[in-house]
């Protein structure tokens, strides 16, 4: 609009001067300007009427996977001589192929379609409106409008398949599952011996016990296997996160939480997710694939944050977790978290802590030591901190908390394969 005003001012000043001075030459000079100005006014459009449709293919990806965004524009108004469109890209995404902005002539009733490829890190990316600008062919009077074409791209954490998690909560649910329920009944694991009852199959008779006590008959009893309530807690406190360039320890925690939740759900358990960050985000417990999707969506949007309230773990809302259920905490852990975890254990919760190792992560991420600080100094400092951490983790283990330390340089699934085997052996 500014350009039109400016040119209009020049034209009318010249015309006014020409008329006031009674000199035709000024009027003649105004003619080209007036012609340009009138042409622009004649060709301008009062409004832009577009129908915009955006399509993402696919809508859910893992970090770094390319996504094709297709935008189709239909002109429901008059001819547009110069239509400039720009698809607003959510921050965090980068274009790897194509362009999200175009300049085209679009006649009435015609369509224009363009596509570009994006990729980005973990997160939820709502696509906003398509920005369009059009006007006369000289660009003197331009109209701008935004056209909604809602779409949402979810970049999920790259969860890996891990073997079934060997958990042993004190209390299980009534439905059959794969978690030993500490109750005799149908199952596969030997649980004990009881007097024979009518209807027991003959292959369950414990002949050795019968041989010792010939007056009675005994049957083997097996441990019932049921599903359990599991709360996966992801520690998103800023103070536990470490960042080096584009690497973040929190990202590894997210992958671990997602992988564990997937595995636990696959076992048939009822799993909920709590993200303990600058606020609490609770994904209500549930079963199955739908719950897995809910959890992965929550994890996709998870971000570390700082809060005075949730600085320590003491404000964990334990009322959300059923009594004597299983808690899986994914956290690098700090010294002052120890007491909270011991308290949880004392209240009857079975606690498994997956602990991405911050010391190894930091050592691997550090730049090459400068002249005054040698590599040996760094290694010595790392050893001291590791010793301190191993003392802390030892105290946790002695309190009955299962702790799995994870050097994030190793893939999570490979590390868990060995760790779960050890945990499985610890359980009688």
């Amino acid at each position, binding site marked *: 609009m500014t350009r039109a005003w400016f040119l209009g001012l020049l034209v009318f000043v010249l015309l006014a001067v020409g*008329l006031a001075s009674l000199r035709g030459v000024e009027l003649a*000079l105004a*003619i*080209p300007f007036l012609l340009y100005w009138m042409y622009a006014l004649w060709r301008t459009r009062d409004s832009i009427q577009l129908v915009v449709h955006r399509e993402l293919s696919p809508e859910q990806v893992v970090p770094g996977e390319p996504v094709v965004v297709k935008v189709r524009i239909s002109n429901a108004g008059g001819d547009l001589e110069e239509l400039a469109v720009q698809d607003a890209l959510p921050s965090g995404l980068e274009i790897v192929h194509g362009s999200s902005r175009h*300049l085209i002539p679009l006649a009435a009733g015609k369509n224009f379609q363009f596509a570009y490829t994006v990729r980005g890190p973990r997160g939820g990316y709502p696509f906003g409106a398509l920005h369009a600008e059009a006007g006369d062919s*000289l660009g003197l009077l331009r109209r701008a409008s935004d056209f909604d074409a809602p779409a949402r791209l979810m970049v999920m954490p790259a969860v890996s398949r891990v073997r079934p998690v060997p958990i042993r909560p004190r209390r299980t649910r009534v439905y059959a599952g794969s978690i030993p329920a500490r109750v005799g009944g149908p199952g596969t694991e030997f649980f004990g011996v009881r007097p024979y009852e009518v209807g027991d199959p003959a292959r369950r008779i414990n002949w050795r016990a019968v041989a010792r006590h010939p007056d009675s008959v005994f049957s083997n009893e097996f441990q019932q296997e049921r599903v359990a309530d599991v709360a996966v807690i992801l520690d998103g406190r800023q103070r536990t996160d470490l960042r080096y360039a584009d690497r973040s320890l929190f990202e590894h925690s997210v992958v671990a939480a997602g992988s564990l939740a997937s595995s636990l759900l696959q076992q048939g358990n009822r799993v909920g997710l709590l993200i303990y960050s600058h606020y609490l985000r609770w994904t209500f417990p549930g079963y199955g694939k739908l719950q897995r999707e809910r959890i992965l969506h929550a994890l996709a949007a998870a971000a570390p944050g700082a809060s005075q309230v949730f600085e320590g773990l003491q404000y964990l809302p334990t009322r959300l977790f059923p009594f004597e259920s299983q808690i899986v905490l994914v956290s690098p852990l700090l010294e002052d978290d120890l007491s909270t975890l011991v308290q949880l254990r004392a209240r009857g919760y079975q606690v498994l802590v997956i602990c991405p190792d911050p010391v190894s992560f930091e050592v691997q991420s550090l730049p090459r030591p400068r002249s005054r600080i040698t590599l040996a100094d760094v290694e010595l400092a790392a050893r001291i901190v590791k010793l301190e951490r191993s003392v802390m983790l030892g105290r946790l283990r002695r309190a009955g908390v299962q702790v799995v330390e994870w050097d994030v340089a190793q893939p999570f699934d490979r590390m868990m394969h060995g760790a779960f085997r050890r945990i499985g052996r610890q359980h009688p």
Partner: protein
Amino acid sequence: MTVPALALCIVLGTTSLAWGYVGVGLPQLARWLAFFGLVWLLAVWQRWRWFAYIGLTVFFLAAALGLWFLNFPPGWMFGGAIFGLLAWDLTYFRYRQTFAASDAERTVVERRHLLRLSILAILGFWIASVAMALQLEFSFDWIVFLTIVLVLGVAQIARWFRTRS
């Protein structure tokens, strides 16, 4: 194509005005105009879009003053003003072209724009030249008529702008 056309317009506009000023014995002003043309070219290189407003105003004023006070040959002055207008237009067209995703897309829009602009410039120059050649005398009735048209035109356009914004 746009950038060479833009530079050419600035050069031709500057040359046209400067030549007119030299022709009536004002080489000092012509030198200043040439210097200003160089500054405008520098602004094009630096992508200072705002400078196009200054450029058009200076060219416009130089042409109007030459015609009004000094009775310069109108052809050179018209040429200077019209090329200034084209340069001003192309500066903003160059910015709008940044929306184009590919060279093919840019070429399509560019060709249409340059064609329209050339037709408008030639038509404007021709009408202005014809008007000068005819040398119509202003009678009182004619002045009253033109003034009424001007006032009505301004009022109508102002109202139109207000309703659109």
